[in-house]
């Protein structure tokens, strides 16, 4: 079941991201569903699964982006790892905690992209990209992620892989 879910995410999210998500974009900014999914899986199923899913999603995302073939692959894997580690150190998992975690990882990921993609454009261009892409996308991702967590956790009683808690999602 879980494998089917991961396969569905790997093969379904990027097509969704490149096509239908244009309709929900705000000011040309779309939420990064791959980042949100990676973060949630890392949070709920642990850093290993988060990282593996991040690798797969990042790779597929790179195939359908003008970016270099490593950029999303590496950043998404790091995000899955970071989310899993963060979940272990959280006392309680709430949509607010998810919101904060995704906000942080999306902003960090955005800074990596900013330096890599727009680094050559100078400070002015980086400033424009920071305000017009990094910040709105981090907010968008955090809201979508927290909303999704609230929906799935409320219905399936999923809990993150905390140090003292159980790991039902990974079972």
């Amino acid at each position: 079941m879980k494998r089917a879910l991961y396969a569905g995410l790997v093969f379904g999210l990027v097509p969704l991201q490149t096509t239908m998500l244009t309709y929900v974009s705000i000011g040309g900014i779309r939420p990064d569903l791959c980042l949100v999914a990676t973060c949630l899986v890392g949070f709920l199923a642990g850093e290993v699964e988060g990282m593996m899913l991040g690798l797969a999603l990042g790779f597929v995302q790179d195939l359908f982006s003008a970016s270099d073939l490593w950029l999303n692959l590496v950043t998404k894997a790091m995000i899955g790892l970071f989310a899993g580690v963060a979940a272990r150190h959280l006392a309680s998992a709430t949509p607010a905690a998810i919101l904060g975690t995704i906000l942080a990882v999306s902003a960090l990921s955005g800074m990596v992209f900013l330096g890599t993609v727009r680094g050559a454009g100078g400070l002015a261009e980086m400033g424009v990209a920071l305000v017009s892409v990094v910040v709105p996308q981090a907010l968008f991702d955090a809201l979508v992620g927290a909303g999704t967590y609230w929906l799935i956790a409320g219905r399936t009683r999923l809990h993150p892989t905390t140090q003292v808690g159980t790991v039902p999602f990974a079972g």
Partner: protein
Amino acid sequence: MLLLLLALLFFVVFLLPRQARALLQTVGQPVAWVVSFPLKGFAAIDRSVMAVWERYLALRGIEEENRRLRREIQYLKGQNDQLQALAADTRRLAALLEFKERTSVQTLAARVIGRDSTNWYRAMVLDKGELDGVRAEMGVVTPAGVVGRVVKATRSTSVVLLVSDPNNAVTGLIQRTREEGIVEGTAEGRARLKYVPLLSTVRAGDTVITSGLTGGFPKGIMIGVVNRIEKEEGALFQSAEIVPDVDLSRVEEALIITSSNPVPQSGPGGAASPVEPSQREAR
């Protein structure tokens, strides 16, 4: 007693019929006049009831007809929308075909199936890939002008970096002054012609076309129109902001230039693809 009276009445009627009829007629006149009032009243009520009933029945029919007509309107609207979409598709594809026939370069028509999977690039995904002969660095155009260049190709899809992306660079030529520069995208989604000599007389409204010096595009494909000139103090060159001629957010089909053969046909100023007003509408 009553029987006796009844027998008398029958006797009179049968024995004196004419007189009896006249008598009854005379007595009946005022009775009929009196009865006529309630009769007319009832008749009026009857007419009203009939009218209401008929109207109700008629309304039921009209409601049904109205519903049918509404369904018909919906159907016709749908058909009209479909026909309009088909007409728009036909106009675009006809312009694309005409452009393809006018240029000697080998091109491959492709459909836009998506946008970049991140928010960091202005790029789009086409439905043609390596199996169709698409390779990285190939130019992508529409009848209106340059769209971008292929940066990545998988077996069945390819990613095109748009001319308005800051990471893209195409060599451009100012059509009027014949001066060259590098066209790069800007963060605002436009393009900028860089490295224009300080002594250049470039001005707003000038047309910028491809110079043909870099691979992917033949000489003379429309890039855009100069919007404003930017001169920085102490700089060795000036630059010009360009508004791309192609509405890059609405491209649905494009041509991938699969061969960089020189273009034999030359328009004014060396433009290989002078864009007709009718073709501009098809963008």
